[in-house]
């Protein structure tokens, strides 16, 4: 279950922005929206850490910083390792009575490169050791910061500079790694997926992730207009379509027990509302080549994978 926390949109609007204006993310950057929303859901003193990635680079261009809370960055693979260190240090300070706060939360932010590929060993280790922190993965599905290289999070058929679409190869030939399921396999207390378009769901899941005792993992889809070759004004619309097409279903797993979240439950109970992946793909220029006659079979394969993963998820949630 996500948090019992009750709030209205205006209450959230009245909370201070802890991720401030003036950061240098591109126009229409959904990861920036995700960071703002996540920091609106915190419950008290919080320390953040970032792995290298778009949001680390754009939020802290020396000497400027967009963070209104204590923030640390060391290297690409160390978001989870940093968080473990911070959490342990806090535990020691608490034992020595040197902090008066009841709890200080730790949030680690990582991009898909820093989580799917480079940071997975640090993350896996931190979760295994059971540190009490929330890991937020903002998934923009490639290494956007260095110029759109493929990562483990890039979906099948997507164009990137290192999986280019040509006459023979239709973009990335491999599937997206199911990272959230990998995290559930760690038998951690709380794993969830979220989308900024369904912001109430996202905020409740963040709060829940902070409330649980032990590690929590949140996988958030975050469209990148530059890398996805999409219209900057459509970033939120695309993150909504990702849920409506079941490409990125919203669910949460508490102690390994899967349950579908409301926006995806609609798709499960009323399958006629589920949209086809074509609608999602045609909004993004990175899938443009798939609409050529020679690559049309790839769209079929994408739909097939989405359906397969969706039915597997329904099975885990005990919905047939």
């Amino acid at each position, binding site marked *: 279950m996500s948090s019992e926390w009750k709030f209205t949109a205006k209450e959230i609007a009245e909370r201070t922005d802890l*991720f401030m204006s003036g950061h240098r993310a591109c*126009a229409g950057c959904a990861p920036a929206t995700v960071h703002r929303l996540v920091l609106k859901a915190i419950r008290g003193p919080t320390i953040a850490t970032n792995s290298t990635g778009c949001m680390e680079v754009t939020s802290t261009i020396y000497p*400027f910083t967009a963070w209104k809370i204590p923030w640390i960055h060391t290297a690409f693979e160390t978001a989870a390792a940093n968080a473990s260190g911070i959490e342990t240090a806090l535990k020691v300070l608490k034992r020595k009575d040197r902090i008066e706060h009841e709890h200080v939360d730790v949030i680690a932010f990582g991009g898909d490169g820093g989580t799917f590929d480079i940071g997975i060993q640090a993350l896996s280790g931190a979760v295994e050791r059971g540190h009490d922190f929330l890991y937020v993965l903002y998934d923009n599905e490639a290494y956007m910061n260095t110029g759109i290289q493929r990562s483990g999070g890039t979906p099948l058929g997507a164009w990137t500079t290192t999986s280019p679409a040509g006459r023979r190869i239709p973009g990335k030939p491999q599937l997206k790694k199911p990272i959230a399921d990998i995290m559930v396999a760690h038998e951690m207390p709380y794993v969830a997926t979220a989308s900024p378009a369904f912001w109430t769901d996202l905020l409740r899941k963040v709060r829940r992730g902070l409330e649980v005792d032990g590690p929590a993992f949140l996988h958030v889809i975050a469209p990148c207009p530059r890398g996805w070759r999409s219209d900057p004004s459509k970033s939120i619309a695309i993150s909504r379509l990702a849920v409506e097409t079941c490409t990125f279903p919203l669910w949460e797993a508490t102690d390994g027990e899967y349950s579908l979240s409301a926006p995806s439950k609609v798709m499960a109970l009323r399958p006629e509302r589920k949209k086809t992946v074509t609608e999602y793909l045609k909004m993004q220029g990175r899938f443009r080549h798939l609409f050529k006659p020679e690559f049309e079979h790839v769209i079929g394969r994408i739909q097939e994978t989405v359906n397969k993963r969706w039915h597997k998820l329904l099975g885990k949630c005990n919905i047939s």
Partner: protein
Amino acid sequence: MNPKKKKGWKEIPMAGVCWVPSTSYLTGDWKTYRPVWDSEKCTRCVLCHLFCPDGAITWKAQTNEMIFNYDYCKGCGICEAECPVDAISMKLEGEP
């Protein structure tokens, strides 16, 4: 501290700490189109504030109005696209 004036290594904080708030860096001149708010149509659902990547739109409770801060707005148009009642329209910079 003034970020414009270059500092020597003896004067900057240790360990590469960023000390200037990003709000002193204005990103408003990036935009081509600017959002224009219609207070008549607006229902104050504050979705534009929640979805804005730059935090350039805020809701002022005292006067119940949405404040658009053009110093930071990058003109992406998410607010216009997501507004459920079309109370925001995008106008080319320089047009009245």
